[in-house]
């Protein structure tokens, strides 16, 4: 059997969110060589954009910090940002993966001193803040970014701003001619942890997302509540910066709907309970109404639901709102039927939060090879037959919360070391 052994014991992990980081670190800590690819400029993925986790209301950066410390200690773990997969060839034991690295325009000399950002006035939409704010054209992804390195926005390239940015760097870290690169990786197993994207709220026609800045999504709410977000963590009406007195959360905004996402995204109920907690922490006299079909606080998370439900200023209304309009004063107005009281309501709010669901991020460099089985929604299914060398982890494999994603990723790490055979 000697000649049938894997040609490579390297494990490749695609996606640097909580699942990918976990899979990479856990695998590396058993002694295997691991390469971690992240499409963006920094690790952490969606959880880095979260304010806090349910049910403990603790900060994602806390766990990420520990993971980053682990990464720093692991000589056998290599992190490549701005990287996505162009092609996968071969099979278990010997894959050849061609990797595209997009231009960052900033090289490893960067010390994150920030002189480049100071040098330019050009601003671009902040993807990290889901478009709620602007950021300088030369920017640090966020205060907790790993790697701690700046990025130059492609929009700036070819403009005089780019030259200002380059000129400002004392350390020769800005490379405006960066074309990115492509290289091949030989590996024995691949963990596919490409995560998710929020469902596009514009598709929810009757909720008129574009009609008012005070209609936001749950992921935007996370940024709004974050000290590092567009409002330094103050939850206010985006339209006028005023405090909120009434907030509505609309559950299943896209999920459990055959017109959109037929499955339940699992996290949205708990996410909105968490958002209710954010709002209540900031305002004593605020009213929060949560509109839901079924409140899905599974297993021990029920306790979190009970804790929030005990708050008399948080109301639960079993109703899928039919539509959102905007009244003369510019307030978003919810229309629908309260299924318990039969009341046909028409209620204005200061802020409406659409609890949009998760859809698998299987596009744009994150599309897995066709050999990997998918369900009709695009979630990856662990192969029963197949060679099992490509292992889905985290939300790429189904709608999971953070803890379950970490569980899934840890299991994937084991599958990966099984796939590449015993450490020689």
């Amino acid at each position, binding site marked *: 059997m000697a000649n049938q052994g894997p040609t490579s014991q390297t494990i490749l992990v695609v996606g640097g969110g909580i699942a990918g980081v976990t899979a990479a670190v856990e695998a590396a800590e058993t002694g295997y060589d691991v390469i971690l690819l992240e499409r963006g400029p920094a690790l952490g993925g969606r959880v880095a954009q979260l304010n806090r986790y349910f049910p403990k209301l603790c900060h994602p950066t806390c766990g990420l910090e520990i993971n980053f410390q682990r990464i720093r200690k692991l000589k056998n773990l290599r992190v490549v940002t701005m990287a996505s997969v162009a092609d996968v060839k071969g099979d278990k034991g010997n894959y050849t993966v061609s990797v595209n690295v997009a231009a960052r325009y900033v090289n490893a000399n960067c010390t994150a001193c920030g002189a480049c950002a100071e040098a330019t006035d050009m601003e671009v939409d902040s993807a990290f803040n889901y478009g709620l704010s602007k950021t300088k054209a030369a920017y640090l992804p966020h205060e907790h970014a790993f790697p701690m390195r700046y990025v130059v926005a492609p929009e700036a390239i070819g403009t005089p701003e780019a030259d200002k940015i380059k000129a400002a760097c004392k350390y020769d870290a800005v490379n405006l001619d960066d074309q990115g690169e492509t290289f091949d990786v030989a590996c024995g197993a691949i963990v596919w942890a490409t995560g998710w994207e929020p469902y596009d709220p514009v598709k929810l*026609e*009757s909720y*008129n997302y574009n*009609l008012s800045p005070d209609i936001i999504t749950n992921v935007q709410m996370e940024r709004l509540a974050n000290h590092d977000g567009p409002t330094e963590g103050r939850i206010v009406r985006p339209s006028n910066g005023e405090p909120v007195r009434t907030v509505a959360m609309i559950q299943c905004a896209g999920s459990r709907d055959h017109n959109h996402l037929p499955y339940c995204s699992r996290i949205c109920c708990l996410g909105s309970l968490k958002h209710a907690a954010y709002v209540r922490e900031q305002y004593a006299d605020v009213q929060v109404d949560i509109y839901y079909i079924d409140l899905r606080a599974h297993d021990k998370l029920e306790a979190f639901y009970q804790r929030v439900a005990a708050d008399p200023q948080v109301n639960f209304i079993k109703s899928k709102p039919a*539509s959102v*309009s*905007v009244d003369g004063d510019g307030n978003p107005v919810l229309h629908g039927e309260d299924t318990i009281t039969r009341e046909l309501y028409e209620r204005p709010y200061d802020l409406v939060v659409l609890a949009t669901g998760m859809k698998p991020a299987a596009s744009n460099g994150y599309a897995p090879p066709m050999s990997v089985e998918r369900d009709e929604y695009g979630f990856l299914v662990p192969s029963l037959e197949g060679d099992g060398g490509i292992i889905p982890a985290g939300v790429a494999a189904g709608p999971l919360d953070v803890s379950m994603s970490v569980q899934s990723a840890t299991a994937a790490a084991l599958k990966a070391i099984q796939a590449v055979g015993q450490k020689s």
Partner: protein
Amino acid sequence: MSESKKFTYYPGCSSLGSGAHLDRSLRAIAPKLGIELEELEDWNCCGASVGHIEGGQLANTALSGRNLAHAQEQGPQDIVTGCAACYLNTHGAAEKIKSDVKLRENINEALGAADMKYDEDRRVRHACEVIVNEVGLDKVRETVSNPLTGIKVAGYVGCQTVRPFAETEGGGEYDTFDDPEFLDDFIEACGAEAVEYDVKTACCGGSVSVMKPEKTLHLIKKILEKAVEAGADVIATPCPLCQTNVEMYQPAINKQFGTDFNIPVVFYSQLMAVAFGMDGKKDAALDQNIIKAKKLEEKAK
């Protein structure tokens, strides 16, 4: 679309009454847009939204069955209609028959009673969908010789022109259910200004307005209010029932709510006829509007 394309045209009962001006203006603009309309042979009522109640489900579908059978005899071309209700029923029936073998059997058994049959499939399309997907906005713009500059129009789509088929494959996926844009596009193409109008797919009460206006006047009031607020000179709609309800109930609304609405309600096809430089009466049928669309009449040659 260079040379003209032929369709079997199903005018519907309203063409002989309340919606006569839709029929007239549509027939007028069609050739300009490269559409040849051949009237459906001995067409009958579609059953509207109440036919099934007294007639029963199958008999009601059989009404469409008979029209489809005639269309089949008339040739392979698609059927087109300007009436929302006719479209809804006939298109719906055609799709059902297409997918439901048993239904096709039953319908044909019924048609047999008059020695007719419908054993092929004919596509039933809405005039607006045809203009969007077949003619194209560019063609509409090109055809405009008398742009309606300075006229503010509230584009009121109503319900059945887009629901439930506009987003479906069979319906030609030509626009959305809640926020359709085709009508505003038509208006702008005619050189008029489409005002911001967020009740464009609000319901006028449909047949309930005919039966029990007391229950639905408030719906129509809102449709009028928003148009006036938006500073519209005229409301344009594709739907005969919407046109009639929104136009003819204005006095009743004024009486009940103490308002003073008097805003003309026309069909997009009337706008086009004027914009295409055609005759205001003969082609645009502006004389058939109870509340006169003065600004359009002035524009019209």
